């Protein structure tokens, strides 16, 4: 069993599935010869050949359309967008066609594509490379949105996403790509989709988060423990469809909730979670639910980045606010 980084786990998952399912195709800009700008597809061209690993032109709309056509013909494309900031030319294909194929054909055809892309701030990159706009896709019926937060979950969730018959937007937190290593068994075991993962059990407050923010949230929970506050940490993982049952069970226990996401505050996925809490958990809440999120601005450039990304201090301050109530 190897100790690998998150991006290596992604490579491992793709290699496993391509090995066992000949219909899996990998495509994107610079994914073949270069192995991807983050080396996420390193070695796949050598192993599986140019019929299965395609270097596309610099044309995101074409990547989307090509993948949908392949999927309709029985292939399973894993299409890479080099950064989430470049996905927008393909929105027409994704929203108008990939998300609707099953509905349009009354189930005769489905669209088993994984659209995978690095996302999120924190890598000191120029403009367009720091987006966290999962809310656009979570709002679209017909799309699944999956966000791993560790090498093991990246491996298991990507396998599950490739095997799923419907389109998945698979968002990879780029600042966690090489952050740390974890033992990941290359056994082809998928993790369940549409369910949250409870990473830390606690009694006083529920912290709900996903993606790269899992790192800061777990660190904040550790610091809160020093103050005598026991925090439960839930990694949502599948943003859509949302596993609200796990979150509700936790909030019924703790009575307090803080949602943490890097994406901008207004109309972020945190709003959906808090709206459901207000409807279904009002009588268990001891304090108003809080959201700690990115600001409603364009993600700043390298030197201001750390002021944008929610810090451990902002998370701890939010928890202290909700702890002031009963």
């Amino acid at each position: 069993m190897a100790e690998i980084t998150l991006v290596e786990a992604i490579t491992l998952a793709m290699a496993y599935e391509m090995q066992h399912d000949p219909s899996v195709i990998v495509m994107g800009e610079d994914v073949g010869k270069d192995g991807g700008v983050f080396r996420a597809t390193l070695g796949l061209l050598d192993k599986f050949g140019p019929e299965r690993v395609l270097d596309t032109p610099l044309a995101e709309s074409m990547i989307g359309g090509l993948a949908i056509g392949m999927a309709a013909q029985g292939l399973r494309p894993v299409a890479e967008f080099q950064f989430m900031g470049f996905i927008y030319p393909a929105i027409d294909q994704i929203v108008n066609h990939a998300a609707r194929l099953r509905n349009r054909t009354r189930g005769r055809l489905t669209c088993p594509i994984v659209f995978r892309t690095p996302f999120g701030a924190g890598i000191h990159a120029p403009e367009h490379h720091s987006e966290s706009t999962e809310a656009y896709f979570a709002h679209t019926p017909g799309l699944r949105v999956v966000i791993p937060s560790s090498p093991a979950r990246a491996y298991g969730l990507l396998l599950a996403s490739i095997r799923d018959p419907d389109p998945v937007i698979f968002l990879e937190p780029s600042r966690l790509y090489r952050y740390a290593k974890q033992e990941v068994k290359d056994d082809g075991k998928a993790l369940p989709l549409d369910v949250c993962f409870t990473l830390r059990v606690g009694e006083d407050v529920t912290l709900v988060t996903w993606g790269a923010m899992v790192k800061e949230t777990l660190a904040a929970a550790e610091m809160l423990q020093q103050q005598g506050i026991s925090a439960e940490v839930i990694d949502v993982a599948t943003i859509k469809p949302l596993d609200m049952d796990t979150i509700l069970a936790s909030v019924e226990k703790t009575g307090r909730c803080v949602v943490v996401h890097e994406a901008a505050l207004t109309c972020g996925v945190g709003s959906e979670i808090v709206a459901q809490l207000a409807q279904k958990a009002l009588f268990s809440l001891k304090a108003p639910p809080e959201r700690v999120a990115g600001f409603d601005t364009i993600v700043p450039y390298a030197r201001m980045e750390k002021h944008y990304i929610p810090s451990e201090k902002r998370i701890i301050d939010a928890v202290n606010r909700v702890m002031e109530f009963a």
Partner: protein
Amino acid sequence: MKIFYLPDLGEGLAEAEVREWYVKAGDEVKVDQPLVSMETAKAVVDVPSPYAGKIHELHGKENEIIKTGAPLITYDIEDATSDRPKNSVVGALEESSKKWDDGDVIVGSAKTKSAPVKAMPAARVLAQQMDIDLTTVKATGPQGLITADDVRKHMTSASAATAAHMAGGEALHGVRRAMAIAMTQSHQEIVPVTIFEDADISELTPGTDITVRLLNAIIAAAKVEPALNAWFDGRTMERKLFEEINIGLAVDTPEGLFVPVIKDAGAQSEKDLRKTVDEYKIAVRDRTISAANLHGATITLSNFGMITGRYATPIIVPPMVAILGCGRSREIAMVKDGKVVAGKIMPLSLTFDHRAVTGGEATRFLGEIIKQLQKA
């Protein structure tokens, strides 16, 4: 010496042009410190230093084109291997030798044991302001919710005042708890009047069993005035007179007050009475007395004078209507036929429930008791 090769500055570009150096040979630089401004086909970017250390040599002048992967700067750092960057990226990825510590990951929710309280938000705020524990409030809202009204009701109920705990207090159990409940009920229902009188026991034979004497006095008085050997129900306005006389005998123990019942005392001989009294005293002390023997009293005797006290206002436990309290006998100076003589008296206190017993009935009852006690 460590060579920093020009990394891919953006999406696989092959080269870049030096615009402006920010450092020179001999400078000490920190990690991430901007080294040089490079212009690519796409943009002008700053290249941050991957290492901390002293600059040894710059490999290019301003306006010179440097190919991606070619040497950019040599650092004066001890390092045997000079590695080409394997992961060509835009920007910088944090790399560490840290281990990813996931701990125990639970798929779905962590199981919980307790069912916490559900309350309206307004109820929670009110309970917090009034320092009330929500788990003690009775819920009447939909789905088993505690409403704000439930909290207000809890505040005004009698139990609430004392439910807000006394520091160091202990909850009553067993006999003491039963006494508190019985006395509360008595106070709420009974309308008590107590008559005080003394029995002249100067002529009493020494060594007389006082308790048995009192029991026999009650038996005789109950035949004269049966109204005091009865039960009364204030709710139904019913009164029940009894043929048998079941005398409750108040017995004090360290645990509290017990009242075993001498059933059908009127049919018992003096010896039987004494035997029963002794047996009861032992049974109460040993806590072997049966529940049956603690119920069914129709009238009660409380001989509190064995300890101390002259007169009292003893409490009647419903549904009974009378209780005789007997205080401590003592020698006094009495006036008889105009002369002061020494004598002995036994103080008596008879409480009766004036809802069911008249003053006349009570005084005649007491008169008969005194007559019986004043016999030799």
